[in-house]
């Protein structure tokens, strides 16, 4: 697929609405995601956060509005056309959604094995590389059932990044994890954004994880990396959206969110 203009937003969601029967899930939701930036979507359960990701992936069609990914309008595309768009998208699902019958290596290399012409040896090297990136190289031949919850999420991240997508969507990637494991997953998101220049949308209701990703950055140190406090410019690149009953209730950076006076936002942040 042709790479779009580096300056143009990678995702544009414009006045998207969706209802299931009588229940309105999203109403006139609009936002953009710039290349290499992070958009954090916050909201209570059932506020429509995950639905937005599914619409961006083309898994759901909106009732109204338009969605552009890498400059291409995707809400009017057929499933076959969407397959091409998804080549530059990766998604980490709630609970990981790993394929039970495949090993970690087969899960991580799935897209490359099934949908590319890359030789198996090269795929294996890429799988080892991404598993090394998330620190799970020793688990390469295990089955998903042999992994802990945190390891499953990290394998899901490895699977999403294996084909080197430009955009990663995280759906509650840290929900249900203990704080230490959640921080490990958060660090993977920061590393991918800052070291691999991956644009990301993070859906969560875990404020601690959202602020961690928004206020930290990964920098290279020799052969390794370090997670440090982000400078002001980097902090501005991470934008927050708060959804309330399918409507955007807030949009701004971490500092603006902390300073918000709105009663709902205050109760959510407290």
């Amino acid at each position: 697929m042709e790479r779009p203009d580096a300056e143009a937003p990678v995702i544009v969601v414009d006045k998207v609405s969706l209802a299931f029967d009588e229940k309105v899930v999203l109403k006139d939701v609009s936002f953009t995601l710039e290349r290499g930036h992070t958009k954090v979507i916050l909201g209570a359960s059932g506020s429509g956060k995950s639905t937005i990701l599914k619409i961006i992936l083309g898994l759901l069609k909106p009732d109204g509005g338009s969605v552009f990914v890498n400059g291409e309008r995707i809400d009017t595309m057929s499933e076959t056309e969407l397959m091409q768009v998804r080549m530059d998208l990766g998604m980490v699902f709630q609970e990981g959604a790993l394929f039970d019958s495949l090993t970690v290596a087969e899960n991580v290399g799935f897209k490359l094995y099934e949908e590319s012409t890359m030789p198996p040896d090269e795929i294996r090297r890429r799988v080892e590389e991404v598993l090394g990136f998330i620190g799970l190289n020793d688990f390469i031949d295990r089955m998903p059932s042999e992994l802990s919850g945190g390891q499953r999420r990290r394998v899901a991240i490895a699977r999403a990044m294996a084909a080197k997508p430009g955009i990663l969507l995280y759906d509650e990637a840290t929900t249900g994890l203990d704080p230490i494991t959640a921080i490990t997953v958060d660090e993977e998101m920061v590393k991918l954004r800052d070291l691999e220049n991956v644009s990301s949308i993070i859906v969560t209701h875990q404020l601690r994880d959202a602020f961690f990703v928004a206020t930290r950055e990964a920098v290279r140190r020799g052969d390794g990396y370090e997670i440090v406090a982000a400078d002001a410019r980097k902090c501005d690149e991470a934008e927050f959206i708060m959804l309330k009953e399918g409507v955007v209730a807030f949009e701004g950076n971490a500092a603006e969110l902390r300073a918000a006076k709105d009663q709902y936002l205050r109760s959510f942040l407290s």
Partner: protein
Amino acid sequence: MFSLLDAWLKGAVLEVQEYVRLQIATIRGVFSRPFYFHDVVEQFEQIGIGSLTVVLLTGFFTGAVLALQTGITLDQFGARPFVGRLISASMVKELGPVLTGLMLAGRIGSGIAAELGSMVVTDQINALRALGTDPVRKLVVPRVLAGFFMAPVLTVISDTVGIIGGWLIAVFQLRVASSVYWTSVIDGLYLDDAWMGLAKPFCLGYVIVTIGCHVGLRASGGTQGVGRATTNAVVASSVAVIAVDFFVTRLMITLLY
């Protein structure tokens, strides 16, 4: 009352529409790329080899019990030597295809619905789509091909062991000479019967697998939904086996006899 009927009708029409759409997508998937050959081979093994034991046992005991029951009846007319003819005709034309179909509905239909249903409720189907793979081509097409081609093979095996089961009872219980039994088996079979017995399992295999896939892919509501889908798949495909058997028999009689 009217709204309930309206909702039920809408639901029924939607199910039929989705079932037809799945079949169109499946047929398109068979004749276009990408084609997941490895998965097709795997499903041939799972559906074919995996169902062998149950089909062998069912076929054998059906033939055996048929010999026992018909032996008593035939005795009343002094026609015990014709037991082979009755068994071969019954097994090849009707019991082999239908019982194999019912066994496959229980084993394959339920397995497919449970597997695909679990994949739906754990987001694995969405993950497949997100990774750029069409679930119909990857999951449905291989199963449908395996069901379509392996059901006739399993039916022939079932017919064969059924006739062997009947032979054992005929020889050791009914005291019919082995040569008399086998001559009777061959006398009782006509080419048209063989065509009928072979045409049915193609249709039954296709129907069982497509129903299992359809019900599994439309599962919702967590593990409870998967259980419901599994039950629905077995019930629907079992009823479909009997119904399709009737219609194919009617059609074949019109065409062949």
